[in-house]
């Protein structure tokens, strides 16, 4: 079958913050750049980011990148690579100021500087006192960022392919990446995007969980594509759970609610956080609060007829405070919980929020894999940035405001690497293999002809329930083990999905079936990696990991201070060392210590 082919210097998949930042670097350097995106760029999930972007500008309180580096390494529970973390925090000021020049409407101080506010986990003096490090544009930071970057890309003549679903990576016999196949949703036709460089910036896969704060588009498309193309996924057992998602809906209730005095209560009305974190109580860090809530529910003190959630109480705050200081919370609560928080308590549960793991990269944005005895060999022509990538700067747990920073710094870094490789003539348009589109065409053909198959929605729901039950906030050896068997069964069902609507034009059922192929790879990676990691670290908390002097908080550095690599083929695991050495010789490594706040 003849497949249309388009040729570019570079193809970028995804038009959220990381994709747009990378595209800008390429287009401004004069490279012919295509950006593929399944939704209009300014409808990417980056829009939902509220908290701000971290940078040690020191506009509101004294600050420097050494402190930011310490906070990020500690936040990562020492699983983050210290070279990549040093690179990110050092670049923070530059990328934020650039964004300011692109017209990003940051909040200002009285003397016109970018206003900065405190955020959990960020400190002065290596953990001593809170620091104001977050730069925000009201509560629409992500939205403003995406608009500034999009406008700039339009000016730089970036070519957008909107409502195109990327399907599969194209690799040659040597393993080099030569582009992607993609389906135009308007026609249903598959095309080849042949390029010297391919950058993935497809975001996370938060929809693998039943309870998720992520929008429906977050189906881990790039992560799934990479896994199917033989590339391992790094540290996929680490998912951040936000303590306060509305029960049953997932919609996020911002941390600010507890900052303003919101109290978590169990079924009997007890302020249970007093037992778990006597000092910080409801303001303890995300993972501590999430675990406390889960313990309450697991031990039968949950609220509601199914005793499956706890309650967030702001009834003691005045309606004026709620309306003024917590805009939007009342609307969310009324709409999704059917509760007016001025009069009643909001049902909440810990909810999947952010994917720390992803496609393994170095700090330059190059995708790196083990090869010939080396652990981090760049794949020719392949780069990744943002939530889909694992640099690794977040390690086992991400700090708030470091995700927008990640996508700016590594979007730009990936772009700079591509431009440099392009200008030096290193990147070449390599001949396409004859069968470049065969895998994608076979996937489409299978969906056309499948009979007696599985319903996409049912399989997706079964995957989400399995992940929620077996790889949630708290993890148990036997539950994980059973989870592996179950998710492999669900994956078998996902191979036989069937759709009723066989039309080609704007067939959303087909798109959802293709998305499920990506989700299921991420789900398998998460479950298998989590089952194997026999310790607690950051967001991965196991009931059977002993908290003792040798393994504080259950963290076992002797055996588990290493990155997981999961391969889809053979469902096998490999590991590689964490880089504890910063990038610069004159920067001291942050020494291993127990993570306490």
């Amino acid at each position, binding site marked *: 079958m003849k497949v249309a082919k388009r040729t570019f210097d570079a193809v970028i998949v995804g038009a959220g913050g990381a994709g747009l930042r990378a595209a800008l670097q390429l287009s401004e350097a004069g490279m012919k750049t295509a950006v593929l995106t399944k939704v209009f760029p300014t409808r990417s999930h980056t*829009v*939902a980011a509220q908290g701000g972007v971290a940078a040690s500008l020191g506009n509101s309180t004294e600050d420097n990148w050494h402190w930011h580096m310490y906070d990020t390494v500690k936040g990562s529970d020492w699983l983050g690579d210290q070279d990549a973390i040093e690179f990110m925090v050092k670049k923070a000021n530059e990328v934020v100021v650039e964004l300011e020049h692109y017209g990003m409407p940051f909040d200002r101080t009285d003397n016109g500087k970018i206003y900065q506010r405190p955020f959990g986990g960020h400190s002065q003096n290596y953990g001593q006192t809170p620091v104001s490090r977050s730069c925000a544009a009201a509560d*629409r930071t992500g*939205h403003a960022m995406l608009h500034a970057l999009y406008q700039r890309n339009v000016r730089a003549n970036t070519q957008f392919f909107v409502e195109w679903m990327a399907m599969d990576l194209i690799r040659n016999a040597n393993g080099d990446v030569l582009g992607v196949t993609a389906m135009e949703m*308007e026609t249903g036709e598959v095309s080849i995007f042949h390029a010297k460089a391919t950058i993935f910036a497809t975001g996370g896969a938060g929809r693998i969980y039943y309870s*998720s704060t992520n929008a429906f*588009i977050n189906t881990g498309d790039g992560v799934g594509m990479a896994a199917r193309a033989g590339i391992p996924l790094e540290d996929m057992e680490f998912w951040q759970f936000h303590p306060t998602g509305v029960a049953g809906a997932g919609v996020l209730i911002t941390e600010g609610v507890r900052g303003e005095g919101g109290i978590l209560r169990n079924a009997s009305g007890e302020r249970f956080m007093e037992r778990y974190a006597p000092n910080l109580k409801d303001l303890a860090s995300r993972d501590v609060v999430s675990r406390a809530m889960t313990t309450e529910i697991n031990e039968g003190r949950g609220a509601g007829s199914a005793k499956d959630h706890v309650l967030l109480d702001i009834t003691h705050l005045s309606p004026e405070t709620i309306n003024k200081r917590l805009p939007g919370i009342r*609307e*969310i609560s009324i709409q999704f919980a059917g509760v007016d928080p001025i009069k009643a308590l909001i049902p909440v549960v810990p909810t999947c929020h952010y994917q720390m793991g992803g496609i393994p990269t170095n700090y330059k944005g190059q995708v790196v894999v083990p090869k010939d005895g080396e652990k981090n060999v760049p794949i020719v022509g392949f780069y990744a940035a943002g939530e889909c990538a694992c640099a690794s700067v977040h390690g086992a747990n991400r700090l708030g405001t470091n995700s927008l920073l990640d996508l700016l710094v590594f979007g730009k870094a990936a772009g700079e690497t591509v431009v440099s490789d392009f200008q030096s003539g290193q990147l070449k348009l390599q001949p396409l293999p004859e069968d470049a589109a065969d895998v994608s065409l076979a996937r489409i053909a299978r969906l056309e002809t499948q009979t007696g198959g599985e319903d996409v929605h049912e399989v997706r729901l079964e995957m989400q329930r399995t992940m929620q039950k077996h790889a949630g906030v708290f993890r148990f050896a036997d539950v994980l083990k059973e989870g592996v068997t179950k998710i492999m069964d669900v994956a078998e069902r996902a191979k036989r999905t069937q759709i009723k609507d066989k039309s080609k034009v704007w067939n959303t059922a087909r798109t959802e079936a293709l998305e499920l192929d990506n989700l299921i790879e991420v789900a398998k990676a998460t479950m298998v990696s989590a089952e194997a990691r026999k310790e607690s670290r950051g967001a991965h908390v196991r009931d059977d990991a002993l908290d003792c002097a040798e393994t504080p908080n259950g963290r076992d550095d002797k055996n588990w201070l290493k990155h997981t690599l999961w391969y889809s083929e053979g469902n096998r695991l490999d590991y590689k060392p964490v880089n504890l050495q910063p990038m610069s010789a004159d920067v001291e490594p942050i020494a291993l210590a127990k993570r306490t706040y």
Partner: protein
Amino acid sequence: MTLNRGRVRWQCRRALLELDLVFARFLERHFDHLNDGQLADLDDLLIVEDHDLWAMINGSQPVGNDRWKEMVELLRER
């Protein structure tokens, strides 16, 4: 020109989970019964930025165009 229903349906995929949930309910209950005029109104509404659209649906911001009112009412149904 008649709008393609599949295209409009896909445009209901948004950047915010709040909207995805509202639209999921709307797609289930109402989408298949919309006439061509209503479909065109919806298509027009879908151009609105996500935060503004959510603000109109939850009532914290007025509906900016009379043409959108009927669809916003349907989206508000709980």
